[in-house]
């Protein structure tokens, strides 16, 4: 390839991989990360102009950019990954309703807080029993994962917590009756809970939290500039105007601003001390001890659910798959066509979409499934289509003489299938089914998207709490690997066993073993 072309291609690649970062060096830009899927009023797509993002944080970014004489550029990033991407250098700062917590403050640097609020409890209008946090015992309560609200609920104890990635689903599930209550940040409650006619607020706002802008620890200069700019925006009332515009101005923020103005800007010396502390490296033994502490959490909270989902889903896949294959091959046209269509549709569409349709789509037609049942139906129903194809291949590989021999002995077609065809197909199908089970076991991680707390979900929680995607990731992968191992060996044993001495003949009564 021509060198200039290669250079251009590389440049293009670099721009794609790190949006904004490439720009940041040339022109004076201020890149900031947020998740436009996170929703209103933070950063979200303008319903009228979906190309454009709006929100109160977009307004704040613009005001900051003006003060810093830098052109602010929004960089889209998944909310969970906002801080890792910041550390990676994808943007200069992250601002998207990120609560200032001690855990986060260990890995990033926060500006002075720009907003304060509390958590708001919502229930259905028809509910008369829930008035406060104390009434939530034994109830199913939705919240955002990794939020103050989630921690408040966990601390209260005895509550069935469903942690969501997005706020809309939680409030819709509440309206549908899948949840008993939802606890979320006030702005979210105001934008997503309040508009729903079926819902109402109950109780006093709970807790107190402050949002800050997250920076890389060593960006001391930018921190100083942003703090000064925020200070200006607080003092000249610009921030207050933004909050009034978005209907978010509240007492907590007013009080916080007053305190911040009274305290003045943080002293320079204090900042550099903090920086040094943050940059001090952990020793290997400290790190190992920390990783070790993840193991019991993963094993207790995640592993049993992963195992349960995999086993039940596979049982469904194997039995439903067999039915599909038999219908496709031997049933009269309407049924066989239906089975064929099911197999093609399921194999031709992504599992993730199927799960969303089952969990979030079906309630629209009045079918509300628990996350567990939805996961089983989604995974099992999906794998059934693949198992059906395995069985079909297995059945078609059996010589036609087997069926003819069975029929000429006076068996009906159904009896011939049951006693002659299926047992032989089953044996042929064990190796591919085994492999599919191992894939399913790993694919079960995908059900974390429908609020089910299994291994991958717990991994996500741990990783985003400690901002440690490597340690938790390796440990989680190891757990998957070790848990899958017995099944690999079981399958190999079964395969050998089934083709060797043969399966007991079960004809109505007890099994007849080979003489």
């Amino acid at each position, binding site marked *: 390839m021509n060198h200039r072309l290669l250079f251009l291609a590389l440049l293009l690649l670099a721009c794609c991989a790190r949006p904004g970062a490439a720009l940041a060096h040339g022109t004076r830009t201020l890149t900031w990360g947020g998740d436009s899927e996170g929703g209103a009023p933070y950063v979200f797509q303008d319903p009228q102009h979906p190309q454009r993002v709006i929100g109160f944080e977009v307004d704040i970014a613009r005001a900051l950019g003006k003060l810093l004489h830098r052109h602010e550029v929004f960089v889209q990033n998944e909310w969970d990954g906002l801080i890792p991407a910041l550390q990676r250098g994808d943007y200069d700062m992250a601002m998207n309703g990120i609560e200032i917590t001690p855990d986060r403050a260990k890995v990033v640097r926060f500006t002075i807080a720009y907003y304060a609020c509390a958590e708001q409890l919502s229930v259905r209008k028809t509910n008369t029993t829930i008035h406060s946090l104390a009434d939530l015992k034994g109830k199913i309560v939705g919240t955002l994962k990794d939020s103050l609200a989630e921690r408040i609920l966990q601390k209260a104890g005895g509550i069935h917590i469903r942690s969501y990635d997005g706020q809309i689903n939680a409030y819709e599930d509440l309206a549908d009756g899948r949840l008993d209550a939802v606890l979320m940040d006030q702005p979210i409650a105001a934008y997503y809970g309040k508009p729903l006619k079926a819902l109402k607020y109950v109780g006093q706002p709970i807790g107190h939290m402050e949002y800050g802008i997250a920076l890389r620890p060593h960006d001391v200069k930018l921190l100083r500039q942003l703090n000064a700019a925020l200070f200006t925006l607080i003092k000249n009332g610009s921030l207050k105007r933004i909050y009034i515009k978005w209907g978010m101005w509240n007492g907590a923020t007013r009080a916080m601003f007053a305190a911040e103005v009274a305290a003045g800007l943080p002293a320079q010396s204090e900042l550099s001390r903090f920086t040094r502390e943050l940059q001090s490296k952990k020793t290997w033994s400290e790190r190992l001890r920390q990783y070790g502490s993840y193991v019991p959490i993963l094993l207790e909270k995640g592993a049993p659910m992963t195992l349960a989902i995999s086993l039940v889903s596979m049982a469904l896949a194997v039995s439903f798959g067999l039915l599909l294959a038999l219908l496709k091959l031997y049933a009269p046209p309407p049924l066989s066509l239906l089975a064929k269509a099911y197999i093609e549709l399921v194999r031709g569409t992504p599992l993730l979409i199927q799960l969303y349709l089952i969990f979030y789509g079906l309630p629209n037609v009045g079918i509300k499934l628990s996350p567990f049942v939805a996961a089983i139906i989604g995974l099992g129903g999906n794998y059934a289509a693949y198992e059906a194809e395995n069985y079909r291949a297995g059945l078609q590989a059996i*010589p036609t003489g087997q069926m*003819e*021999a069975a029929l000429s002995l*006076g068996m009906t077609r159904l009896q011939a299938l049951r*006693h002659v065809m299926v*047992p032989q197909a089953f044996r042929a199908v064990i190796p591919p089914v085994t492999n599919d089970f191992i894939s399913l076991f790993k694919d079960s991680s995908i059900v974390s998207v429908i609020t089910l707390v299994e291994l991958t979900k717990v991994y996500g929680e741990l990783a985003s709490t400690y901002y440690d995607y490597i340690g938790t990731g390796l440990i989680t992968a190891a757990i998957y690997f070790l848990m899958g191992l017995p099944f690999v060996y079981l399958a190999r044993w079964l395969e050998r066993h089934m083709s060797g001495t*043969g399966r007991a003949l079960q*004809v109505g009564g007890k099994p007849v073993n080979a003489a």
Partner: protein
Amino acid sequence: MTAISARNLSKRFGHVVAVNDVTFEVEPRELLAIVGPSGCGKSTLLRCLNGLEMFDAGGVNVGDAGVSRAAISGHRAFERAVHPLRQRTGMVFQGFNLFGHLTVLQNVMLALRVVKKMPLRQAEQVAHEQLARVGLGDRAGYRPQQLSGGQQQRAAIARALATNPSVMLYDEPTSALDPTLVREVLLTMRRLHDEGVTQLIVTHEMRFAREAADRIMLLDAGKIAALMPTAEFFSHRGNAHIEKFLEPFRGVA
């Protein structure tokens, strides 16, 4: 009363008329050898008799059960109608078609348990008896793959005999066997003949047909070209079909 009979039986595959208006009767205890050149319709005729092929016209009677094609429309109805024929016949295939996932004993027991709903102990006993009958009493626990071709075919015969059919149908039972293994299968069928089992045997073994069969049926292009007692068949003069068919065997059989 006849053991098995066909009336105006016809079966075509596209343009090929494999069985063309065939009518015959077989008496109980009789051994009928069905012979004819390759592709003349022997297998198809045999498979019509137990409904493995859905014939286009005519009818079949086995004992007190009968199927008339005129009264039937559709595959499903045909399948239901021929069920009594299958319960009254046993079929032995060129390729044995033993069930590979079962032992020899289980092969013989399966229909007893599934079709006849026979109690376990009784089914086991019957299966052992039938295996002894074909000289395989000591091979009950073997898998089909562990047997020689001749033993496999005898096991298949035992499996068909176990349900106590009134007619046995064989489609070239020795064609897939080593020459050294043919004898044991032919002997088994002769012994069954002596026991009084009614048998229709499609075969190319003309010496066996001459020695064991009561009558010979010669098929040609789907039609019965000759059907007569064995001695008469082999001494017949003046029937062009017979003479043409027997030509290659002169001096051999």
